[in-house]
């Protein structure tokens, strides 16, 4: 893996998560903000589906959040 800014940022992100996981977080009664609709990880599934389809048909990358296979003949 090349040493460049992007790789370092991603590695740092992953390492921070793995390292800090057991001490991070909130109590069950502190989940008010996390319960908001716009804080859900799959908050806008249709936007994501339409965008993924659009980018899959125009670019060489896909997936990341979900699977990379497009299931359509557009690439």
């Amino acid at each position, binding site marked *: 893996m090349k040493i460049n800014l*992007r*790789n370092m*940022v*991603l590695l740092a*992100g*992953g390492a921070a*998560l*793995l390292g*800090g*996981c*057991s001490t*991070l*977080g*909130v*109590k*069950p*009664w*502190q*989940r*008010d*903000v*996390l*319960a*908001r*609709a*716009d*804080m*859900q*990880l799959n*908050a806008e*599934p*249709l*936007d994501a*589906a*339409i965008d993924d*389809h*659009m*980018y899959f048909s*125009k*670019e*060489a*990358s896909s*997936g*990341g*959040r*979900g*699977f*990379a*296979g497009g*299931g*359509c*003949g557009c*690439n």
Partner: protein
Amino acid sequence: MQLKRARCRLIAASCALLGATAARGQDASSAAADSPSGDWNIDSAIAYYHESGRIKAIEPIVNISKDYGDGNTFGAQLVFDSLSGSTPNGALPSTRPQTFASPSGKSLSAAPTTYTTSSGQLVSQSAPIYAINPGQLPMDPNYHDQRIAASGTWGHAFTRLLHGTAGGKLSYERDFFSMSANAGLARDFNEKNTTLSFQVNNEFDSLSPIGGAPVAASDYALFAKGGGKTKDGVGVMLGLTQVMTRRWLTEFNLSVDRFKGYLNDPYKIISVIDGGGNTTGYLYERRPDTRMRKSAYWENRAAWGRVSANVSMRYMVDDWHVHSDTVQLHVRWRNFDRDRYLEPTLRWYRQSAADFYTPWLDSTAGNHIGYASADQRLQAFHAVTYGLKYGVKLDDSEDQSSSQFSVRLEYYRQTPDNPRAGPGSLQGLDLYPGLEAVLLQVGWRF
């Protein structure tokens, strides 16, 4: 006891107790607790996509989902899309007119029924032959396709902390059929602050290109085509979701997938150019028959009062030596009454070219080419998307099942990077025009 602070904690604790139990809807009676659509959440949208001078598409899509309350969930999606317009065929512009056959064509010799539009463009009507004027990017104007796809996913909670999902997807088009199945497991830790997940996906695609699948790297003019082809792929994804603070959630995914089989685009060709820049012929493309991709994805969501933000990054590499970076930013601004929002979005994307990407082939190289493709999607380019979304809540509830109407507009522009200048007479031509597209989407959720 610090008295005032104690009361704040008590209020928060009672809200959490009552919020948590209300959200689960335990033993909720039918008289009082249903969402307007009777437990099914329906999310629908219709999108109109238009590439400047190229493809237009209409895509209605609908998602339904239901939480049974006992740890089981079900979701299904149905999407239909209809595309038409012009699509680049991979050949390069030339200083001379060029003639091509649409995929169903059997030769270049049939006289086309042509007419000139008011903008001076030569268009073929009903016959599969199309002519391209000098200097223009060769595009097949007869492209049209319709697709229908359906998918479903079941979710099941084995224990309070262990959840599983299983799903499948089917997609039908005139020349392409795809089916896939997926399964996953997720386990919560640290009072549900951490979730580890694992997913597997398996896909099988069957292609029946119009006119047949061309023999790879064969001469275009020979129209040497065979029967249908297939490809299949497996992917795995490892995910970690972590609540960082009360206002910040993060997700990190690592995924690998590998496809094998017929990975060519059956409709794309490559121009063969001589030293003077003249096109001497065309070849069908040839790509490797395997492709393995690895990607790392990191998403962050955070909210403060009326504002929430989503920042994500993705890095992908594959064994075609394409590597890409994607950064996306969404910021949602809700109004004072929290019944409307405006969400500007920005996406920045950059990819490198596949190692066998070549805008043209050199006529002196002979016919013994290895892998080659002139498909614009494999070239080095960067792309920017600017978007704006506006949403209006149609009812009073705060959660994801509230009714909502939304409109979204996006502008996408793709610009090739470091394009190679053409030899000879091609030097004055714009060989890499890039791409511009607009998306307009209207959605209802209820």
